């Protein structure tokens, strides 16, 4: 008997002859738990929560306004005007505002990373990012500044709705689903929250539309 058999045997013995649950059926139905009520204006809620978690939030009417907003943000904070981005974001005229973005995964010394987002969770002001060949996870993680471009129509109320969207649009989970709620932080030293641990020091979310 190996460990697996032993453990399962012990569990089975302890359970005894209790009624077998329809575990497979229950999992297939994936029922939601109790969901807190939220206000109707999800974009407003998202923005307020994101700000309260130390993200910076900006609005753009169309995607064409985005590079200008980013340039403004970087210049204001004296940050470098170069970095990496997801391929889908490459064609939006970054050069015209003086920003140079390479389309690749981030390396340890990249300082700015520009990504999109699969969804925004209004309940907590959280970005939902999916990993993939066209959406490398490192771009939102290694650089000191993370800029996320989020379609307003992809802001949902809660994580439950985001899962359903994912099931419908993708079928299966990607390798990594990362929920991001602001700059990285730690409070390990004297319980004092400090922004900028191993991930980004700052996060700018540009809500488009």
């Amino acid at each position, binding site marked *: 008997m190996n460990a697996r058999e032993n*453990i399962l045997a012990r569990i089975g013995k302890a359970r005894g002859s209790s009624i*077998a649950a329809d575990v497979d059926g229950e999992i297939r139905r994936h029922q939601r738990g109790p969901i807190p009520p939220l206000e109707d204006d999800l974009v407003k809620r998202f923005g307020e929560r994101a700000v309260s978690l130390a993200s910076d939030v900006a609005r753009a009417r169309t995607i064409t306004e985005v590079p200008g907003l980013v340039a403004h943000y970087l210049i204001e904070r004296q940050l470098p005007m170069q970095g990496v981005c997801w391929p889908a974001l490459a064609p939006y005229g970054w050069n015209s505002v003086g920003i140079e973005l390479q389309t690749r995964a981030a390396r340890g010394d990249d300082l700015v990373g520009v990504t999109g987002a699969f969804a925004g969770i209004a309940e907590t002001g959280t970005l939902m990012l999916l990993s993939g060949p066209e959406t490398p996870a490192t771009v939102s993680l290694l650089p000191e500044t993370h800029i996320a471009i989020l379609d307003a129509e992809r802001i949902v109320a809660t994580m439950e709705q985001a899962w359903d969207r994912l099931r419908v649009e993708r079928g299966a989970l990607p390798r990594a689903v990362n929920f991001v709620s602001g700059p990285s932080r730690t409070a390990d*030293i004297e319980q004092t929250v400090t922004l900028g*641990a*191993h991930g980004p020091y700052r996060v700018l979310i540009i809500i488009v539309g």
Partner: protein
Amino acid sequence: MEVTAMHFKRKAAENLGDEKLQQALEKLQTKFVDGRAAAIAELPNFGEVRDAAAEIRDKVVRHLDRYLLHFEQEAAARGTVVHWAETGDEVNRIVADIARQHGLHKVVKSKSMVSEECGLNEALESQGLNVLETDLGEYILQLAHEPPSHIVAPVVHKSKEDISDLFSRHHASPRKTGIAELCREAREVLRPGFLSADLGISGANFIIAETGSVLIVTNEGNGRLATTLPRVHVAITGIEKVVPTLEDATTLLRLLPRSATGQSITNYVSVLTGTKEKGESDGPEHFHIILLDNGRSQLLGTELQPMLRCIRCGACMNHCPVYQNIGGHAYGWVYPGPMGSVLTPVFVGLENALDLPNASTFCGECAVVCPVKIPLPDLMRHLRHQQVQRHLRPWTERVALRLWSWVARHPAVYALFTRAAVRLLGWLGGEKKMLHHLPGASGWTKGRDMPAPSGRTFRELYQARRSP
């Protein structure tokens, strides 16, 4: 981890006298206690969510094998290798084998309390692997060669000055004093570690049966880095950590960060499924999950079964007035506070942790704040009962309790005994009606007086009034 739970009383006494620690523990109150209260208050349907969370965990525990098998099937379908281990040593062996199999030498670790149970770091280092803890608190502990004193905030017992000293010594760099500076230094020191590591080891806050995924919550980003950059990722977790669906994980996520640190959500929540996809530039080529028993299955079918609902939030210890005064190291193993007082005796042997379930006033605050409604005082009482049944209590205690019980069942004897006792104590109390010493109860009188009784019992006074 080495077990020192049998030295609880001595270590508690030391910690009571440790000024620095006492100051550090006071910060727990504002940060974690007030933080949790505020975070719970802003969740409008907290009660409902807590009921649902407890039910999810309870349901899983009742049908644990079914959920684990479903998880295993889904994980395997995504190319994840699932291992089962009965003991910490087996876990260490499995990880060492994986390292050998893939030629791995440099490990980055994201926090895992289960790995502490196993003594994983030492085991891997003895096999010639280089292990780097990346959670800031765990990294600090690694430098200081100390165990964690809290399951969520492992260096709550250390001051900024302690950490400044440690860093300047180990990093051979000028001493930083600001907290932000210290964090920046840690980031710069640890980043090359992330980038050059070939094996990432993490725990798992939950594993999800529906999708065969591992769910990790962090604030620092080290969890993401450790599970994205190295070419092999090994996640180690307890068998009880499985939850049925993504929705169930979401329900529990409404309570875990709130209960732990007062956050509505942790900075990062990562749901990891399988290996690097075709064409992906990031992600591990190989993903292993190790499911550890180490005594957990022994709790099933016993009065201690509810303990398996635990989601390791730390709220119980944050709110425990005993923990608040003595800190975590006194508990002498991986898990401190109320949950540690239940798990440690179970995992390391009742006889090695006799004091832990007894060092509680049963105030009940832990049960009030537990997000999954574990009746912690009842479980500790059950362990006390087990100690009595296994004759592990000192004979003096057994005799005293037996005597009291017998006397209390015989009212006439009780009357004689108590009338004599209160007259004696009343007399000893003197004019001031205060006792400064009590034979056999120096635990009380070392730090407190005892108001002396009046010298007559209620029963005799009542009888006297009734029959003039």
